[in-house]
């Protein structure tokens, strides 16, 4: 059955008309871009660091199957239980089984984009399990009943005033906090603190999993990650299978570049290195740790040498901050767990081109994301490749060829015929120069163009003509 195609153009339209939203994103992204620029003021250091980080990721991907086996062995040796899930449905079922076994009806969760991919909260709620997001941004988004609009700053689409309003509507004690950011944060903190104590399960993401030591690394700013992974008796960590790195020494380049690229911080407030459940005689830590390693299409991304680079991503979100399209429409318009440039190359590969074929086109190919990507992902090249896949059936990407159009193919054939024969080119361009300007603005494409622009005007004579007339030599 053909899946419903997500209409990015329609979703972005509403966002474009929301001046509050536009203002929030413009301000936030401007701030993030300048903070990042301060971090990488030294171009030489930037080039050295990103080459190092890229090499760490490339090396991990080159040995991915082997490293995953090594990771499983070492995690297991450390007492961490490993679960493999090839689909999000499998990952959800695994999670539910762990929760049931632990008799847990409440989970507190730190930021995890993989669980967004899984729609885990909705799934568990359907099974009468409460999941509380403990990252402040995620908490706000959950209260609001929406999705994260950014992978690092989930509630970046809202300003303090809007958050204060939301709190007032949803939380009993919020009346006294006013619009003071510190007071609002304090209120959320008090509510969350109680939940951390009562939760049977803590959940988290993983920023890097070290194969040689069996260590899960988690970076965060609010301490909620540490609470989720240490206070409840059971901790479940979720990771995409690409998150593995080979050695412990591969971690520093990632945890340095990630926050510097994302928020312009030199390092996050918390760096958690989780290597085992609570041991005999230890006073804290969970008694069980589980890690759910999710595939969800990553293996097929991995199988294609060109598309594989998608998996280098360390989820810093800097590509969003620098994307002129994302900045205009915000994250919700993409209607996907991963918005912005990385989402535009990752989500179509996970969900297929029938549903997500338009995503790679919502890009001007300006390369702003490529310029700042800390692991040098050729995002725009992959975007171009997916545009090819969308209209040509192949074995590489799910639903490739789903957007093939005979009309479009014919237009390009005609274009190629015109541009490969000097005679055809001459006839066509002479005709355009002569009568092109008479084309009515209501024509398709011209209509879209002229929505905010004047009609392009064909010059009376082409450059070919002028050059000939001026005696510019042909050879």
């Amino acid at each position: 059955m053909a899946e419903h195609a997500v209409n990015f153009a329609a979703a972005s339209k509403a966002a474009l008309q929301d001046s509050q939203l536009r203002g929030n994103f413009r301000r936030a992204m401007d701030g993030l871009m300048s903070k990042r620029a301060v971090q990488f003021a030294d171009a030489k250091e930037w080039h050295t660091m990103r080459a190092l980080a890229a090499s760490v990721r490339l090396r991990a991907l080159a040995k991915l199957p082997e490293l995953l086996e090594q990771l499983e062995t070492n995690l297991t040796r450390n007492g961490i239980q490993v679960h493999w899930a090839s689909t999000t449905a499998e990952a959800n079922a695994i999670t539910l089984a762990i929760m049931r076994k632990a008799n847990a009806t409440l989970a507190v969760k730190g930021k995890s984009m993989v669980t967004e991919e899984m729609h885990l909260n909705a799934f568990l709620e359907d099974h009468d399990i409460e999941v509380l997001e403990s990252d402040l941004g995620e908490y706000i988004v959950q209260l609001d009943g929406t999705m994260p609009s950014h992978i690092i700053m989930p509630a970046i689409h809202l300003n303090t005033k809007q958050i204060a309003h939301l709190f007032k509507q949803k939380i009993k004690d919020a009346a006294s906090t006013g619009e003071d950011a510190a007071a609002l944060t304090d209120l959320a903190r008090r509510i969350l603190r109680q939940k951390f104590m009562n939760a049977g399960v803590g959940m988290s993401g993983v920023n890097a999993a070290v194969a040689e030591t069996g260590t899960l690394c988690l970076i965060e700013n609010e301490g909620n990650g540490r609470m989720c992974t240490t206070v409840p008796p059971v901790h479940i960590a979720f990771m995409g299978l690409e998150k593995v790195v080979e050695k412990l020494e591969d971690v520093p380049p990632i945890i340095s570049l990630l926050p510097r690229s994302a928020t312009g911080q030199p390092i996050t407030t918390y760096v958690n290195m989780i290597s085992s459940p609570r041991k005999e005689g230890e006073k804290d830590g969970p008694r069980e740790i589980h890690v759910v390693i999710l595939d969800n299409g990553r293996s097929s991304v991995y199988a294609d040498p060109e598309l594989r680079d998608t998996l280098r991503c360390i989820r810093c979100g800097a590509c969003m901050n620098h994307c002129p399209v994302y900045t205009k429409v915000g994250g919700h318009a993409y209607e996907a767990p991963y918005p912005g440039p990385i989402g535009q190359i990752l989500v179509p590969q996970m969900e297929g081109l029938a549903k997500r074929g338009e995503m790679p086109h919502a890009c001007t190919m300006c390369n702003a994301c490529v310029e700042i990507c800390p692991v040098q992902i050729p995002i725009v090249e992959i975007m171009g490749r997916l545009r090819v896949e969308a209209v040509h059936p192949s074995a590489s990407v799910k639903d490739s060829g789903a957007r093939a159009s005979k009309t479009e193919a014919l237009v390009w054939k005609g274009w190629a015929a015109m541009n490969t024969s000097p005679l055809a080119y001459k006839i066509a361009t002479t005709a355009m120069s002569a009568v092109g300007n008479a084309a009515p603005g209501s024509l398709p494409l011209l209509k879209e163009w002229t929505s905010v622009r004047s009609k392009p005007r064909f010059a009376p004579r082409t450059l070919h003509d002028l050059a000939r007339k001026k005696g510019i030599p042909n050879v």
Partner: protein
Amino acid sequence: MDRPTPPTKPTKVYFFGTCLVDLFYPEAGMAGMELLQAQGLTVVFPQGQSCCGQPAYNSGYRADALKVARAQLDLFPGDLPIVVPSGSCAGMMKKHWPHLFHGEPDEAKALQVSARVWELTQFLVQVLDVKLTDKGEPLRVTWHASCHAQREMGVVDEPKALLRQLANVELVELTREKECCGFGGTFAVRHAEISAAMVGDKVADIESTGAKRVVSGDCGCLMNINGALEAGGKPVQGQHIAQFLKERTHG
């Protein structure tokens, strides 16, 4: 950039005008050739040229792009530099042709042509080291950098260095010089509303400089920005840098 400067200044160059310039901005192409001639160079404009292939390449129709790119190869024999009045088309030839021709029987030939491609302002500054004498009236301008010129061809300072050589021209830079104007080829019509928002921001940035003219090196951006300026009834006008430099230096 990653390309060595030719040891001696060439006496002859090829000019690849691009399809957009050919149809919509031929004066910019002529001005580009005249600037090169003014430096004592012989300029060759092969009449068989059409397009670099970028429109189809970026739309997912690479076989059609390949045919069109291939049709250009034999027009530029020898080892003369190929000068292009567009960072975007130059970027296609320089950066994407190697990928497009990869594994094709004429790959070596394509690489040989690709390696000789220069963006116009880059060639004027890096190879010819031109010295311009301004003959115009005092004028405030701003510079719009195309994304592909900046990020594919590495052209950032060259055009601004040329504008700064003009004694009576005051260059006021944009606040968000690096941000895309929203053209993006078919993007402008496929995602017309987002493109409109982007060019709207660009126009506001241009206006805030108080410049009378916005100069750029890429006609795709110019068509977009000029179209929006005109439709919005703004007095600022966009112009290709070749035309602007020619106008200022020829009096």
